[in-house]
């Protein structure tokens, strides 16, 4: 017989209705836009988006005042019979980040997707899907029940897939179908795990499950299936076959949403599952495996990013690497008592997610402006672009700097927290991965900036207008990410120390110089394109010394690219999906 339900959050808290509003408002926007038709779709979006931002901010304020999670019981039925919506610090931080990114993308997209006489379908679809993605993401962030999370994840996928193929080109249609099919495999695995858990415990409520769940073989199998399914949707290496074509092929505004927000949805469910449903279950081996996949994603994604010819593909592969970065928190949160602790590492991981969401969206938006201005986005053809499109390049640079983890960006605070956790748990190898990851990020950012800032002997003709508002949206978003270190995180996440005190001094300088120098080195070594950094005559000697290293590194890069080609075949990816499920199951069984 199951123990009686604990009397936790059995009532709706006073500001709990805000959680319902955060879901209902975007969904109402979608329905209204459908009813009113394409003439009013922009006005509906203009009305709904500020309202949604206000709701997210109100939730943030209410949560930091009440100090305990907001709860809303749908129909006043308490779990296990009813469904609860909950918002803790993690959800509130992500809700706010989502709202900010959606607003910036909406401002950016206003120029691209205004409904004109010639083009009606794409703008109409874009605005509806933007609101749908927002509604689905908010549901994921406040859903308190594993099945609600399943439905919300599916809604998110259904809203994200058409965004990929908005312009209807055959390549993007193929990318969309691959994305949809692989995401469906992932969600079926998740649903299978949910069915098994329901069969065992008779509830899917996160709080109730966390009290009742035990290390039985069946529940471990369920956990392994759910984790693997979610990894497929998050595109963690080696399950990333759908991500680069989908994120690089979509229009810039859609790429910003897909890369910045959509992958965070399934990532957030993994965090809920591991940290809140079953913090005692995974064990050492499974957390290390998750971290190892993250490390492999960092190396693969960054090396491939350095070998891309096109800017948007470079950013897409950078997303692949940054997703890997997010998973480093799992081994670091694992403490000596065998539990996943919600401390520094979790705060660091979430901060990384927030800062990546803002920075990557800004990066895609800046790349979109550059593409629109030049008519192409070949990295080697970017010379002199800083003169004609200074704002776009500035936005890209700020976003890149934020992503590199230069102080005071959110990524730098996240890196500090993760490094602290690595020292505390004595897992030095993750500290090495963290530092290498920072250098690799710097490498591809520096590569693009070096090409963009290089002077060009011929003048560049802009193919399209460069609306200033668009660049401002990207710039503001990049600045948001860059200044995240100043935000008082304390009521939401456990950021243990005064982060502003260590901005200056020799330690901070070393922290800045190490990744930058390492990154420049890696950019020179790993990029196969003629590099503006080394091609000038002054550097002849250095070039001669470096050449053998460079050839070795290029061979390594070629090897990685060929390996990626194999892994991106459908059969290879789905077999690695099954292997991962087996591995996670086996490791959890061993630990139990």
């Amino acid at each position, binding site marked *: 017989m199951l123990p009686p339900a604990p009397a936790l959050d059995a009532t709706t808290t006073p500001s709990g209705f805000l959680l319902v509003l955060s879901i209902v408002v975007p969904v109402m926007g979608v329905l209204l836009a459908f009813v009113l038709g394409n003439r009013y779709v922009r006005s509906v979006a203009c009305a709904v988006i500020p309202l949604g931002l206000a709701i997210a901010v109100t939730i943030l304020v209410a949560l930091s005042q009440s100090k305990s999670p907001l709860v809303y019981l749908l129909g006043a039925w308490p779990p296990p019979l009813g469904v609860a919506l909950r918002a803790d610090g993690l959800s509130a931080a992500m809700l706010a980040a989502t709202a900010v990114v959606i607003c910036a993308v909406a401002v950016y997209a206003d120029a691209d997707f205004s409904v004109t006489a010639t083009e009606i379908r794409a703008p109409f679809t874009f605005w509806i899907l933007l609101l749908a993605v927002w509604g689905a993401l908010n549901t994921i962030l406040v859903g308190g029940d594993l099945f609600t999370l399943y439905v919300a994840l599916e809604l998110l996928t*259904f809203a994200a897939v058409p965004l990929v193929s908005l312009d209807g080109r055959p390549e993007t249609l193929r990318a969309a179908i691959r994305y*949809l099919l692989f995401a469906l495999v992932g969600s079926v695995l998740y649903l299978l795990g949910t069915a098994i858990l329901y*069969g065992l415990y008779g509830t899917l409520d996160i709080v109730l499950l966390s009290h009742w769940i035990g290390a039985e073989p069946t529940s471990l199998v369920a956990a392994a299936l759910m984790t693997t399914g979610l990894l497929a949707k998050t595109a963690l290496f080696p399950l990333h076959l759908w991500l680069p074509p989908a994120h690089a*092929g979509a229009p810039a505004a859609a790429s910003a949403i897909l890369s910045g927000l959509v992958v965070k949805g399934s990532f957030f469910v993994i965090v809920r599952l591991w940290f809140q449903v079953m913090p005692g279950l995974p064990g050492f081996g499974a957390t290390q495996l998750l971290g190892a996949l993250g490390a492999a994603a960092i190396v693969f994604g960054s090396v491939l990013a350095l070998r*891309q*010819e096109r800017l948007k593909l470079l950013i897409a592969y950078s997303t692949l690497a940054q997703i890997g970065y997010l998973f480093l928190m799992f081994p670091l949160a694992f403490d000596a008592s065998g539990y996943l602790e919600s401390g520094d590492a979790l705060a660091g991981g979430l901060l990384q997610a927030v800062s990546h969401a803002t920075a990557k969206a800004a990066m895609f938006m800046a790349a979109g402006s550059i593409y629109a201005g030049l008519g192409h986005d070949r990295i080697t053809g970017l010379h002199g672009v800083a003169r004609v499109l200074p704002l776009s390049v500035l936005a890209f640079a700020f976003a890149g700097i934020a992503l590199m983890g230069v102080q005071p960006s959110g990524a730098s605070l996240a890196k500090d927290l993760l490094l602290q956790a690595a020292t505390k748990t004595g897992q030095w190898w993750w500290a090495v991965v963290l530092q290498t990851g920072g250098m690799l990020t710097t490498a591809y950012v520096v590569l693009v900036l070096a090409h963009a800032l290089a002077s060009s002997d011929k003048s560049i003709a802009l193919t399209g207008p460069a609306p200033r508002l668009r660049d401002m949206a990207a710039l503001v978003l990049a600045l948001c990410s860059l200044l995240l270190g100043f935000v008082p995180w304390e009521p939401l996440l456990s950021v243990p120390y005064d982060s502003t005190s260590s901005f200056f001094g020799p330690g901070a300088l070393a922290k800045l110089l190490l990744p930058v120098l390492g990154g420049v080195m890696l950019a020179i070594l790993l990029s196969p394109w003629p590099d503006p950094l080394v091609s000038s005559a002054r550097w002849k000697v250095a070039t001669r010394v470096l050449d053998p290293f460079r050839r070795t590194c290029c061979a390594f890069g070629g090897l990685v690219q060929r390996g990626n080609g194999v892994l991106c075949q459908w059969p290879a990816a789905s077999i690695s999906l099954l292997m991962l499920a087996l591995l996670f199951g086996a490791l959890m069984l061993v630990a139990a």
Partner: protein
Amino acid sequence: MSGVTVFGLCAAAAVGLGFYGLITNPQPLRKIIAFNLLGSGVFLLFGVVGRRGAVAGTGNDPVPQALVITGVVVAFSATALAIALLLRLFQTTGSTKLSNRTSPGDGSDPAGG
């Protein structure tokens, strides 16, 4: 062997066959059908779960039925979306091949944006 066990084994078989189809079939339409078979297996498992609740004396558990109905709706929408995308691909290119001639990494796509 009780009825519940038989249904449970059927669910496992459907899930296995669906997975096999998803991995091995190169044609997207067959992949979609395999996904539906896989989904049916999971829904059958939910049915078994509800029935087992009844065996344990808690009455016929209605919650899994509600979950299955929601799941069926979701799977139906997924199928519809996949078919719509596939039809559109067929209309624009005249084939439904997903295999991209170039590997996704080398970026030879001339018209990105």
